[in-house]
């Protein structure tokens, strides 16, 4: 298998005996946006931790371009004591990028997520959606070839979520990374992705795969398209089937 990110029969059994993943195989190429939907506790987050190298799989293999990995967590995980600018600069700072270049990268990323004007705000004075944008911008500074999203928009309201979906899509189109996205929301998955994978309840396995062939840019009104609803329905049926 090839690709920027590839799982080969990856399995994960935790020390307490819980089997989180069983023989998961798929690849994500550059320019692909793959979303995994699955019931809670099916090992989706574990999959991302393995992809990023935070966890070692207990069987099988993972290939990933981890040099400048983008990883957006469920929570914004910002440093409270840094302003938006300071937070966005953090990763470049950890990678030893010099100050001027760091400033430029941060300004660019802040612009991309639409946080300009809020550079000097501290996280405590930002809304949930803005914190998430800041978190996105932080990962963007490294221009990651592989971008992992761990249910990033689960905690924001519906309207903000749709906005963030559209922005994520724009980022994907402009940056062209290999994206692996995890979510509970079927419409979010179908709206964003080039491919949707359905994962079963624990131990997690890939039980269905859908190619999503709508053209980019996808506009908000796509959500009301009958074909869109049809696809969502099929994903949903497979997701329900995976529960039993």
């Amino acid at each position, binding site marked *: 298998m090839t690709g920027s990110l590839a799982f080969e029969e990856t399995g994960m059994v935790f020390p307490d005996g819980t089997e989180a993943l069983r023989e998961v195989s798929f690849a994500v190429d550059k320019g692909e946006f793959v979303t995994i939907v699955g019931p809670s506790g099916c090992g989706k987050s574990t999959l991302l931790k393995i992809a990023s190298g935070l966890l070692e799989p207990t069987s099988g293999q993972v290939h990933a371009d981890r040099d400048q990995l983008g990883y957006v967590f469920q929570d914004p995980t910002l440093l409270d*004591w840094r302003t938006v600018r300071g937070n966005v600069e953090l990763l470049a700072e950890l990678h030893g990028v010099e100050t001027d270049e760091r400033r430029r990268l941060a300004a660019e990323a802040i612009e991309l997520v639409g946080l300009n004007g809020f550079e000097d705000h*501290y996280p405590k004075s930002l809304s949930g959606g803005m914190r998430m944008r800041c978190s996105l911008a932080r990962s963007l500074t490294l221009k990651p070839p592989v971008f992992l999203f761990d249910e990033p928009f689960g905690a924001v309201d519906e309207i903000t979520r749709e906005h963030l979906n559209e922005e994520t899509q724009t980022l994907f189109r402009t940056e062209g990374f290999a994206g692996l996205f995890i979510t509970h929301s079927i419409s979010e998955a179908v709206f964003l992705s080039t491919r949707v994978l359905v994962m079963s309840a624990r131990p997690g396995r890939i039980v269905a795969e859908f190619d999503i062939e709508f053209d980019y840019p996808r506009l908000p009104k796509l959500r009301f398209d009958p074909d869109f609803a049809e696809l969502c329905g099929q994903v949903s049926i497979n997701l329900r089937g995976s529960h039993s």
Partner: protein
Amino acid sequence: MSERNAIKGPGTIRNLSQRLLPPMILGSGFVGIWYFIAYGVLEPRRRFLLRPPHEVIQVGFLEWDNFSLILNSLWSSTKVAMMGLSIAILIGFMLAITMSQAKFAERAIFPFMVTLQAIPILAITPLIGFWFGTGQTSRVVVCVIISLFPILLNTLFGLQSADSGLHDLFTLHHANRVTRMRKLMFPAALPAVFAGLRISAGLSVIGAIVGDFFFGKGDAGIGQLLRKHASQLAGEELLAAVIMSSALGVTVFLFFGWLQERSIGRWHETTTGAG
């Protein structure tokens, strides 16, 4: 916006009066009860037990000989407290950082810290006198022992409080121990460190006075003065000295509250009062 600015002036004044009025009312009530006990409850020949407030002010604060003695002793105790607190902060930080870096160190050190904290200070003062003499060193040692625990515990707790997601982020980007400490753990610990500092600072004043009470050699502090006035039944001076030592404790507490607001107020919601 401009409307809000317009009412800001009188608003702050009202805010201030809202904050000051309740303690002033309670304070006046307290002084009233003080007078009532001094004049209403105690017969004149037993009034030495509690002198009325104006006599305390007259003798303790307005007679310069007495007041300058109090101030001198207070300064001596303040120096002991500051030295004790500085040493406690230094030891507390070093131990907390060591403990946060290695689980083994935490497991090894923690029981001894709890033990040290649990020993009644009065029980070991004779030992401290044995080992360090009855002068300044012993006073500082008492002060360190009393104020070490809160600063150590809060700093350790603070260092361990950084979000696990942030730790993952630092791991993903190959941050080394020093970077992780400097950019993540230490800033994350600051709110807890300040909470510990405020408690320890208050305790260091108590420690200085207690130490001084037992060790009288050399530059005598407020503890020795309290002792002297008590033995001479000098009620006015005694009360004046008590009031001034409380004032020292309050000042230290307010100072660290102010320092906390200055250092981390911009990004951290301060929840403690009196700032």
